[in-house]
């Protein structure tokens, strides 16, 4: 077994020497898929091996087999979370997976607002919102792309369990990496440069979003969120076990208006979680809908 410093270099030779066989890799991928719904193909072998070895070293396991067995102990949840965090790309930026924002303006909102009157409320919920890129992207996208944006009172609620990221979100200060997907003209329109590599969102957008602290696994807290037309919940449920995942989507169901929509991350599928939502395949994206409401 190579020392940690050797594996940290990430060389193929060091990874091979760690002794994760093809069979080990397949077993782990099968296990991880069943647990999270995330599937790794052969092309992810290096990525997965490197992170497995990092956790094997950190937990004092000299080889794959005892580490893999340890993941199935009763008290393994914390380690599974650490490994999952390493194996999921936990990053966010403006206009990430923006095909869903196009779906929102071109397909979802026209359907949701059909029959609503001028000045009626439209409530959109971003959860988890992390440092604010997603809810602010929704606001910018709607201003730029939805012709009826001024016809309704649009509320954007953004929630996260982490109070630190919520403080950062409310501040609205970002670096260039967070903005790399935004067209330059939108950066100029909605941000003010602060220093060499810092961009502050203009007040009008910052003040359009209400940030709240929320633990999605707390049904009592979730019950307070009602009358929501569209939920963006992307790349959160993959961190939950089946029981929690189901509990959260049951809460989402109760929070949504009849005919309301939920947008999940690209690797997530409601059909693996609950049968009570209807899959809707729009031209821009597949999303999920609470049955009922005007069509």
């Amino acid at each position, binding site marked *: 077994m190579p020392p940690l410093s050797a594996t940290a270099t990430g060389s193929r030779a060091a990874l091979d020497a760690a002794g994760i*066989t*093809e*069979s*080990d890799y*397949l*077993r782990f991928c*099968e*296990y991880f898929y*069943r647990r999270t719904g995330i599937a790794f193909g052969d092309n992810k072998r290096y990525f997965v091996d490197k992170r497995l070895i990092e956790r094997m070293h950190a937990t004092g396991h000299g080889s794959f*087999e005892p580490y893999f*067995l340890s993941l*199935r*102990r*009763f008290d*393994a949840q914390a380690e599974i979370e650490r490994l999952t965090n390493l194996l999921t790309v936990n990053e966010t930026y403006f206009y990430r997976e923006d095909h869903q924002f196009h779906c929102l303006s071109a397909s979802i909102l026209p359907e949701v607002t059909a029959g609503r009157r001028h000045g009626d*409320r439209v*409530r959109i919920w971003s959860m988890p919102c992390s440092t604010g890129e997603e809810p602010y992207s929704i*606001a910018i996208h*709607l*201003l730029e792309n939805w012709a009826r*944006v*001024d016809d*309704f*009172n*649009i*509320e*954007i*609620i953004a929630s996260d369990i982490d109070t630190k990221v919520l403080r950062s979100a409310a501040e609205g200060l970002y670096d260039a990496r967070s903005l790399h997907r935004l067209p330059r003209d939108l950066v100029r329109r909605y941000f003010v440069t602060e220093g060499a590599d810092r961009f502050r969102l203009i007040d*009008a957008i910052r*003040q*359009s*979003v*209400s940030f*709240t602290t929320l633990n999605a696994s707390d*049904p*009592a*807290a979730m*019950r*307070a*969120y*009602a009358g929501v037309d569209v939920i963006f919940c992307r790349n959160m449920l993959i961190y939950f*076990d*089946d*029981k929690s995942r*189901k*509990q959260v989507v*049951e809460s989402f*169901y*109760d929070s949504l208006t009849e005919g309301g929509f939920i947008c999940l991350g690209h690797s997530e599928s409601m059909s693996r979680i*609950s*049968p*009570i939502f209807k899959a809707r395949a729009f031209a821009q994206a597949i999303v999920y809908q609470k*049955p009922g409401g005007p069509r």
Partner: protein
Amino acid sequence: MAFVRAAVPGLAPPPAATVEERVARLADADPTVRRLAARSLADAPVAAAALAARIEDEADLRVREALFGSLVSIGGTDVAALMAPFLRSQDAGLRNGALESLKQIGAESCRAAIDALVVDASPDVRLLAIEVTRAWPGPLAEPLLRQLIETDPHVNVCGAAVDVATELGSAALLAPLAALRARFVDEPFLAFAVDVARARIAGWQQPSGPKR
């Protein structure tokens, strides 16, 4: 301006109705009332029997899901015992709902119920019981898998046990799997499944077979 600030939601008040009143609402004519009643009983273990009793008669999928969800939240051996009989149901939705719920309840809570089901007279019930163990920690599932691999007379039940063993098994199952292959020597699909399981468990490279 298009955007308005939303009032930040606080905590919703706890249900005002008593447990008895909420249980009574499980039979309301309005499915929305029934669903809300079912959801509100998630923290009322005394309502577990009422929730389980309602499942079989409940035709609305959204309400049935809420009933299962609340039973899972309550959890424990009593709930597992209430749900286990649903694995015998002729209603596929009910069977699957019970199967998924038993998986979510966890090994410690449903172990006694599953111990009883893996020796059930019906191979269909035994097969579903094995599927529950797929969600268990390997060391807990393995004794049951071994018992079935060594003794169950039905080839499909053994096949299901081999499938779970492929995922969860340790080297302790290698010999029982080899014996199973010999016991059903005329069943090529089982031989193939056993070979895959043994290869995976032992870390051997498969000489042939489908590529993933």
